[in-house]
């Protein structure tokens, strides 16, 4: 993650770093950034992973949801008591961030509109813990009870939000939507699935009961937070915008849904577009009009509030 406006520390590209490392190793034969190849880089990554995997660390890579840029990050593959100390944020701030993630992946991620992003306003509404969230209900073996988390003030929440962007966990789009960065998606991959896809009937009569919240691209298998979806809103097929060509190619050129075979035309958007463009024409809804579900009502109600 480059620090904005601080050119001295732009270390987002591996070539200069590897060149500097190799030069330090053999100063008589300095290496230039252009001498460093993708293969060199991958060699380093593989060598590192061989050694650090024993400690539950891994360098993973993924593609940016929009730009398709390949991003690498060192992630912690298990979260445990030991590494939970490694944070610059207080427990209350972390609790706030988790509520923002809930907003991203539950509140603003419905069958009609899979936004998976929140505006600042929507995020700031999470500053206070919801009513009645006293002790967390702990399942399973953990018998300890966590203290209820304190509310953050508006300005505290705002600054945590900004820090999340600066630290590289969130990305802020031109239209003001916060979404998870590639780095965050890599680090939180397992947790996202475990947390949001495990509905297990605990919810009562939410219409999202059957809705799988975290979905994967039919082409590249990575999480989709920005992309396209099947015109049938009930179908779970998703694909990144930059993966469609590969998908069609793998289907012999047929531009149809890999799951239900419906024609893949004017596919509704996944991501913030779903919020401000509205869910497009769906096979089971009035043309061009956005179907309003209870959470949509709440969403727009909140925005007007």
């Amino acid at each position, binding site marked *: 993650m480059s620090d904005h406006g601080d050119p001295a520390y732009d270390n987002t590209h591996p070539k200069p770093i590897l060149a500097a490392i190799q030069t330090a190793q053999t100063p008589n034969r300095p290496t230039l950034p252009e001498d460093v190849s993708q293969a060199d880089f991958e060699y380093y990554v593989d060598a590192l992973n061989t050694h650090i995997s024993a400690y539950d660390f891994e360098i993973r890579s993924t593609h940016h949801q929009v730009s398709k840029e390949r991003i690498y990050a060192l992630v912690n593959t298990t979260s445990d008591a030991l590494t939970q100390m490694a944070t610059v944020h*207080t427990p209350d701030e972390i609790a706030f961030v988790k509520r923002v993630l809930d907003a991203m992946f*539950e509140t603003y991620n419905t069958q009609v509109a899979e936004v998976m992003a929140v505006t600042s306003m929507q995020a700031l509404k999470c500053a206070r813990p919801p009513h009645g969230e006293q002790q967390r209900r702990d399942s399973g073996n953990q018998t300890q009870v966590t203290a209820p988390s304190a509310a953050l003030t508006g300005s505290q929440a705002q600054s945590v939000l900004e820090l999340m962007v600066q630290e590289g966990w969130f990305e802020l789009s031109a239209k003001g939507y916060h979404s998870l960065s590639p780095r965050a998606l890599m680090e939180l991959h397992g947790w996202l699935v475990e947390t949001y896809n495990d509905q297990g009937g605990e919810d009562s009569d939410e219409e999202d009961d059957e809705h799988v919240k975290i979905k994967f691209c039919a082409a590249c298998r990575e999480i989709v937070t920005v992309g396209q979806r099947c015109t049938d809103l009930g179908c779970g097929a998703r694909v990144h915008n930059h993966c469609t060509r590969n998908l069609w190619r793998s289907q012999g050129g047929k531009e149809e849904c890999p799951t239900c075979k419906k024609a893949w035309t004017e596919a509704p958007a996944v991501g913030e577009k779903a919020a401000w463009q509205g869910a497009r024409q769906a096979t089971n809804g009035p043309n061009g009009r956005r179907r309003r579900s209870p959470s949509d009502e709440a969403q727009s109600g909140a925005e007007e509030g």
Partner: protein
Amino acid sequence: MPALGRKRRAEREDEDDGSPEPATQGRRRTTQNDNPSDEDDTGYGNGNGDSDSNAEQMVKKLVRLALACEYSRLPIRRQMIREKVLGSAGRQFKPVFEQAQLQLRSVFGMEMVELPEKEKVTLAQKRGIAAKTQSQSQSKTAQSYTLVSLLPAPFQDPAILPPPSIPTQATEAQYTSLYTLLVSLVALSGDELADTKMERYLRRLGLEDHTPIPGYTKTELLLKRMEKEGYLVKVREIAGGQGEEDVSWMVGPRGKVEVGEQGVRGLVKAVYGDVDGYAEAELERRVARSLGLGDAVVARRDDIPPKKKRGPRRKNGEAEEAEVESDEED
């Protein structure tokens, strides 16, 4: 409202919760009895395969613990190791520790270094020592450790090792430069800097009230953080008939290990810029004298002590204005 119960969280009272990370079931073992006799640690007691894999697990945990602590600038306390890593296997401290050191060195290029105990300087503290038995007040075994980088000097280049993004590189760079500066000021004053002098220096640096570090914009808060992290120590001594308080600053344990003499020298050199020949020798002599090293030890030592792990010892805007002078010129 979505049910939050399904998000399992391991409880943690005394530590920070993770960064947006899954709080899966913690593998934290409840500690049974703390083994009080750590001093006579033997090697692995039994030789069966079970204890070997347990030992491996413990070593891995210790490595992860050390890295996590370093991230937050927490000292790795022996107590913490016993609780979080060894659990009931308290007798295994030494072998686990040594094995972890080997792995930290070979895989991560770091090692754990003892943090010196805080010195007992005030009268009250010294009286406290006299009253207690020696084993209680100053244990011979180290109580805490910190990670230190073993990377050779050519690799300690900002192009290779920029300041870590904790939370951002810019913030980390600012913090590093400030504590390096303040530690150097204290060290060059013979490791004891009266609070009045400290305030004067801070005023010269434009830091008497506010600092540029986000989250620690009040100077008081920043100094508290430096104390908490072990860079500085604030010493309060009741002196004089009226019971007035003399406040002074000393270099804290982490300041000694992370910044150390090398860091101070580096800063002075950076501020003075390129000098050679006679001027360089003269500067070295003055630095050595200020650090209380005596004229005999002027040349840079070749047995390079562990280097500071974080970031380059760069000066930034603030440091350039610092005048690192001895007391007479104050």
